[in-house]
């Protein structure tokens, strides 16, 4: 499960005009680890995702991936180095089918269209959507769209996969399916970071949790230890009902 750090974030600052979204955040992610990022809305979790993936430009600090500084690199270069992400609001290519959404990412790794398409078909099968491959993504349920987003992120053949709120807005009947896909991903040994509000997912899947609050790290440790901390309860989880 554990190993050498694959990702090292040091003193990361992201400033938007008057708002300091991240304020000197430092953490490591070890190879094969499943890390959970939790915290209230606006705490800086998704900004940290964006900074690592190249969607957000850091104001200060360093991000080292596999021994190589990546802060400020363009998003596609970071993706090519092996970091993939999904988005909180899914953000699929809405004019394309499910298969095309995955193929276009697979084609960045496979020059042959045929090979890329084959790989995309395998990935859709892996997430249980082979039967919807030719469907327009706009016609899919939110749960299916999120599965396409996972398949698209996997098509980039990542070493580190970052999943942003996969379970939010999901219908009850899709919940267990997505959970099993996430469990399978963990079992492959892929390094994963998830942003998630549903603590059951965090409890069941993650090796370690980092709690964000006001752009800083409030707590860090395994899920149960972190949830027991008074500061975390006060800021994010609330007190249990007696």
């Amino acid at each position, binding site marked *: 499960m554990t190993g050498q750090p694959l990702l090292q974030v040091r003193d990361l600052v992201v400033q938007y005009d008057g708002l300091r979204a991240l304020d000197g955040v430092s953490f490591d992610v070890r190879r094969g680890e499943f890390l959970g990022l939790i915290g209230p809305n606006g705490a800086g979790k998704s900004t940290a995702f964006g900074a690592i*993936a*190249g*969607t957000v430009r850091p104001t200060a600090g360093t991000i080292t991936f596999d021994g190589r500084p990546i802060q400020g690199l*363009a*998003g*596609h270069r970071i*993706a*090519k180095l092996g970091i*993939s*992400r999904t*988005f909180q609001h899914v*953000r*699929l*290519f*809405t*004019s*394309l*089918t499910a298969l*095309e*959404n995955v*193929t*276009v*990412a697979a*084609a*960045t*790794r496979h020059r042959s*269209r045929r090979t*890329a398409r084959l790989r995309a078909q395998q990935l859709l099968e892996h997430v249980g959507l082979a039967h919807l491959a*030719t*469907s*327009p*993504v*706009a*016609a899919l349920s939110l749960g299916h769209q999120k599965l396409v987003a996972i398949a*698209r*992120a996997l*098509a*980039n053949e990542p070493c580190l996969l970052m999943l942003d709120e996969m379970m939010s807005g999901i219908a009850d009947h899709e919940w267990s399916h997505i959970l099993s896909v996430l469990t399978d991903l963990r079992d492959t040994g892929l390094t994963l970071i998830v942003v998630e509000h549903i603590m059951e997912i965090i409890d069941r899947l993650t090796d370690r949790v980092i709690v964000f609050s006001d752009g800083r790290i409030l707590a860090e440790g395994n899920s149960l230890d972190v949830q027991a901390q008074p500061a975390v309860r006060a800021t994010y989880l609330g007190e249990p009902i007696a």
Partner: protein
Amino acid sequence: MTGLLKSPTTHITGFAIAIASLPFWLIPNSGILAIAIVALLYAAAATAFNLTAGLGGQLSFGHSIFFGLGAYATALLRQDLGWNVWAAVPVALTIAVVAALALALPSARLGGVYFVLVSFVATLALESIATWASDVTGGAAGISLTVGSPAPAELRFENPLGHYYVALILLTTFLGLFAAVTRSNFGLRLRAVRDDPAAAAASGIAVARQRTVSLLVSAALTSLVGVAYLQYISYIDPTSAFGSMTASMIAMPALFGGLGTLWGPVLGATVLISVQQTLNPAFSGLPAGLGLIVFGVLVMALQTIEPKGAVHLLRSGLRHLGQRLGTSKRTAQPAGDSLT
């Protein structure tokens, strides 16, 4: 058999044959032939524009830059150096591509409204430069080429029908290229960039590079239309090369007909150029901007009715008609860019 009937190649071939036959039965006089030639040329230019704006989502209001550079480069090389048009074509094309590169490098990352503004300012600047550099360009009076004796091999025809077929060949080639790009990996990347640039980058796609390449190809094709236009009219001036009316006549057909669709620019050019050419005599004594207003009103009216463009309106109208006649079977629409 069904696959063959649905193939864009079959549609484009059928279109080319139908349009090639038109002069023999539906174009009764030279006035209508002239409108048809201009419509075909602008349909070709709009198809080139559609490659970058429709597939890549990079709208520009300055494709007249490439049209004008193609026309001016050919005019100057023919007039001052006595070059054959075929010798001038590679030069015209190179100049347009270099101009596109100069435009793309600082602005391709920006996309959206910034590129629209940069391209519009650039074409207005070129119009001013062409007017100012009168020693080279003839200034506002432009360049009138000596027509000389007909030489079909050099695209100089005694009968305007020759220009009609040149324009048709150009348009058919561009449509074939557009269909091929749409179905290629490059086309898939362009559509991904258009739909969501940030998600495309996160999928490993170099967004700025896709936009730049599509713009270079589009610029090269548009410059060829400029060359064909010059060969037909034998005259070019700063306004007809780089002016806002020319910029509109390239962009509006695709916007009107349906961005990203194969047939949208063709339908758009047919409607808008016909309206513009028909109204030209009525507007001759009025301010020059009135033509643009008519274009704008038509596009806005259509956008209100069918935001995806006239080709979608036509398709749904035909489907509706088919249903009323009881001959239509409702079939699921495939996703992605319509090649209809």
